């Protein structure tokens, strides 16, 4: 008689604790959706450790409804594979994990940890796969969770998860997603109406590599006009051939109605073009609009200051302060040359899909880097 009573009380306490824990995490952030859950992802990347906290709506997979609550990173340079950088990475991982579970009260089972494809491919290339295993083991010991899953994902799985997380279900099988990174670009699409088969698309060019190649050609003349001239030459060379070839081989043109582009440059261009949609994680754009913006970046860069852009907002319902803040963020991350180089690459990719007869709709995705967390919840967590 007494034992069942105790059992009931214990169960009640456990349930109450779980409820309070969940409640605390939910209450800590200002949530956007009525029915949602908070999840966090910590990713060990090539440059550092990145943590993102997401509010995922009930119908996230159908509508792509997720809301970035927090996004932070610690630079550690793990791919140097040296003692100090490995220690820094472990400490970064531990700090962010503690931060999210202790300070923000996100339950450990809602925190996912993974090693990015960039780290994996570099480790494979250099025969340093054991460095990854050591990092994972040390992290498990440090957080005292021997059974904690730390996934090491390859580029295909990373691209697949990003697609699943970013693109809503109703556009899943007709959307080509490409993430323009700093050193390279990757993406793809689902060619066979199932989410297992993923057609991977890769380019060895990104925003930073484009800028570096242009800078190298500029020589002593560091003027903007020379940068523009040299950028056009770089774009007309190897990137042009590679993009044309990669798009043709992927068959993405024939298979897609929508072209979604994520990455830093997509985020920048989206905010500069559409300050009215600062709160929207995705904005539709046309090739001509990006082309005009590119011209402005070169010829009239001052017109892209936060004051100048906010002046063009005529809709009174728009939060101009929020729009100005986003523009300042963009200009803080990318300078004029970086924007020109990234937009040049973006246009080159878009050009491959621009055709008067069979028009594709372009979308710029702002928070593509956290899309995998949403997909992870759907793919790997028990329903």
């Amino acid at each position: 008689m007494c034992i069942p009573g105790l059992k009931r009380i214990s169960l009640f306490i456990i349930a109450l604790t779980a409820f309070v824990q969940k409640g605390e995490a939910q209450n800590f952030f200002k949530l956007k959706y009525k029915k949602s859950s908070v999840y966090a992802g910590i990713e060990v990347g090539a440059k550092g450790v990145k943590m993102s906290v997401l509010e995922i709506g009930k119908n996230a997979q159908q509508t792509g409804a997720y809301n970035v609550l927090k996004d932070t990173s610690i630079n550690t340079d793990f791919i140097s594979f040296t003692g100090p950088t490995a220690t820094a990475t472990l400490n970064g991982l531990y700090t962010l994990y503690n931060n999210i579970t202790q300070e923000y009260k996100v339950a450990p089972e809602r925190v996912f940890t993974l090693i990015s494809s960039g780290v994996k491919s570099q480790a494979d290339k250099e025969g340093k796969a054991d460095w990854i295993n050591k990092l994972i083991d040390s992290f498990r010991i440090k957080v005292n969770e021997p059974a904690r899953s730390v996934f090491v994902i390859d580029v295909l799985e990373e691209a697949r998860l990003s697609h699943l997380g970013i693109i809503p279900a109703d556009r899943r099988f007709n959307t080509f997603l490409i993430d323009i990174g700093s050193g390279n670009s990757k993406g793809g699409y689902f060619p066979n109406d199932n989410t297992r088969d993923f057609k991977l698309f890769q380019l060895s060019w990104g925003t930073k590599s484009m800028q570096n190649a242009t800078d190298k050609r500029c020589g002593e003349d560091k003027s903007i006009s020379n940068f523009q001239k040299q950028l056009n030459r770089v774009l007309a060379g190897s990137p042009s051939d590679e993009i044309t070839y990669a798009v043709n081989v992927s068959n993405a043109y024939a298979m897609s109605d929508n072209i979604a582009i994520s990455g830093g440059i997509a985020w920048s261009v989206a905010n500069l073009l559409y300050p009215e949609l600062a709160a929207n994680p995705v904005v539709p754009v046309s090739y001509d609009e990006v082309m005009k913006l590119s011209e402005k970046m070169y010829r009239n860069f001052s017109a892209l200051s936060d004051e100048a852009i906010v002046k063009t907002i005529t809709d009174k319902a728009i939060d101009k302060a929020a729009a100005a803040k986003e523009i300042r963020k963009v200009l803080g991350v990318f300078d004029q040359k970086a924007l020109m180089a990234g937009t040049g690459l973006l246009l080159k990719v878009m050009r491959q899909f621009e055709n008067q007869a069979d028009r594709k709709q372009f979308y710029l995705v702002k928070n593509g880097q956290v899309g995998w967390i949403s997909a992870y919840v759907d793919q790997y967590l028990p329903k």
Partner: protein
Amino acid sequence: MNGKRTIGILGLSITFISICLLLLATWLYFLFRNTGSENNINQQQPEKQQTGKSATKLPEPDAAAVQNIRDSLQQLYAITTRELDSQIDSTRNNLDTLKSHLDARLSESAGLRSEILDILKNNNSGNEGMEIARLKITMLQQKVNELRRINSDVEIENRRLRMLLNQAGSQAQDKYSTVSFSNPVEKTDMESNTGNQPISITDLRLTAIQLDEEREKETTQAQQADRFVGSFMVKSNVSRAGNAEIVVVVLQPDGQVLQNSTWESGTFETREGKRVYSLKVKCENAKDASSPYRFYLNAERFQKGNYTLQLYQNGNVIGRLVKTLS
């Protein structure tokens, strides 16, 4: 490219000639009907003459003149038909020429592709072979690019020609409409209702829905509402409405635009400047639309107060409605 452009122009010519033939046929029809009527009258006249004693004999119709007109029209018809036939023949010839050009390009590309494959498959190909393969791949890419550029140019030209044709067609239709509907009252009413828009909206509705175990129930309570369902009928004010895109804006009580999914939302130009829209509705063949167009707007939270639904076309408001949720 010139061949494709010629085809576009020939297409335009054929359409123009078809319109001419249609008009000609209409004219012939009316002419023969009138002639038939005159014959009927003439057949009735003798009866009258027989019954009416004082009736005078009407002059006989000039049969020779009618025959002349008929002959000349037949001649004109024969010439036009011959011209049309020759146009069709030349179009066919051009098509054949284009097809042979395309076949030549495709066979060149296929040849290049097989050469590349041969080199790549051949294990004995050294660095030199690889270099040749690389050069051939570049050539193949250039050919693909060239074809794509040509295709794009032709499409642009075709679009321009189609626009010209549509413009010419609608101008002709507008002239015809002005002649037919010359009642000034109707015209004024139409203008005031539509603001000179090619289409107008009727039966505009916005309903808040509560989803109760997959069943939809209408509600006026903000707390119970899960989605808005909107509907409207489209009425065309011109003879050739074609496809239309209606921009839907639903303003929430706090002045923010209600968005279904950010994938469906965006901005559009109005007279007052750029505005954010909730979604777009494509109305295909608006002229023949007999059933209402529907749209859905889901929201995580509905606020209490007035929701303003505005429908825009070409940046102008064509429909407006206010819905209150308590």
